[in-house]
């Protein structure tokens, strides 16, 4: 038995064929009536691959390896296959919390547990209707013709925060915890390492070479900041003003 569905994410329409229903329930906001351009299907071997990968990543980060269910691991396998395919259209999978404020895209990136979701939540609370959450964990980011566009997707993170929408990204901020709220404008060279570390790396060397170029192009196309944030809701307005002040100058 298999489960099938057609979805449109980041401008691509595709058929997903899986062993379990979980991924389709996850993708329900992205159901499409369009004709699929390609198919992603999974096998038991894909699920076992994700199990081993999750275990090795937990060990690498010094965390306890969790026992994940097959249906959840299968959704990770689908995400991996989709991320590999998206590169054909200059689209990377980026680890960030992404939102739009006044229709401009902002992405906060950092290692897991630093406070990306919290800071995005503060922006949402501070700016209300002006602010739309796009994806709180792993958005797709298209880099083409000098534009960087961030897209919502079904893989929204543990808080399941996001929308089926997109925005042109003007600012990427590398988030750190701080004693006070500060924003420091940085250049491509200063940002590149962290941006690369937070980007999905395919196992195909040719696709990986493309990722390295796309991350550089992304860094060239946006304003880049190191931001130091407190766990105070006021941090949203302070960081926004600090970044805006430095981008308005140029």
């Amino acid at each position, binding site marked *: 038995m298999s489960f099938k569905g057609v979805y449109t994410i980041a401008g691509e329409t595709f058929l997903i064929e899986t062993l379990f229903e979980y991924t389709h329930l996850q993708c329900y906001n992205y159901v499409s009536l369009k004709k699929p351009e390609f198919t992603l299907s999974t096998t038991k071997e894909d699920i076992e691959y994700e199990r081993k990968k999750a275990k090795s990543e937990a060990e690498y980060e010094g965390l306890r390896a969790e026992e994940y269910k097959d249906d959840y691991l299968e959704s990770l396998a689908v995400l991996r296959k989709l991320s590999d395919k998206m590169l054909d259209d200059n689209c990377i999978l980026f680890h960030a919390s992404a939102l739009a404020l006044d229709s401009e895209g902002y992405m906060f990136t950092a290692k897991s547990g630093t406070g990306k979701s919290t800071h995005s939540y503060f922006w949402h609370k501070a700016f209300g209707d002006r602010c739309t959450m796009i994806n709180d964990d792993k958005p797709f980011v298209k880099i083409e013709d000098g534009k960087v566009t961030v897209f919502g997707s079904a893989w929204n993170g543990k808080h399941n925060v996001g929308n089926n929408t997109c925005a042109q990204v003007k600012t990427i901020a590398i988030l750190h915890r701080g004693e006070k709220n500060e924003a420091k404008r940085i250049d*491509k060279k200063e940002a590149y390492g962290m941006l690369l*570390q937070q980007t999905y790396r395919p*196992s195909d*060397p040719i696709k990986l070479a493309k990722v*390295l170029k796309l991350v550089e192009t992304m860094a060239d196309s946006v304003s880049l900041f190191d931001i130091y944030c407190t766990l105070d809701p006021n941090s949203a307005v302070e960081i926004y003003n600090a970044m805006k002040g430095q981008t308005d100058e140029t």
Partner: protein
Amino acid sequence: MKLKKEFITHNLDGEQIMVSAAGTFKGFLKSNQTAAFIVDLLKSDITREEIISKMLEKYDVPENVVSADVDKILAILRKVDAIDE
């Protein structure tokens, strides 16, 4: 010896960034000009002595200094399992 094919380099405004597609090395290496020159030589099969020889052609530096630099870079690359001996 040769750089493993899953190690990919990228030139970022004169700095060389190297990552692995294999997933065994999850970080990245940033190389200055000298290290990048050695990494580029390793993209074809080459011996330590040949690397030293090419470095001496390029740089006006004593051989013992070049040898030490080459050995230092090779040690780093071996540590991340980047070399096919």
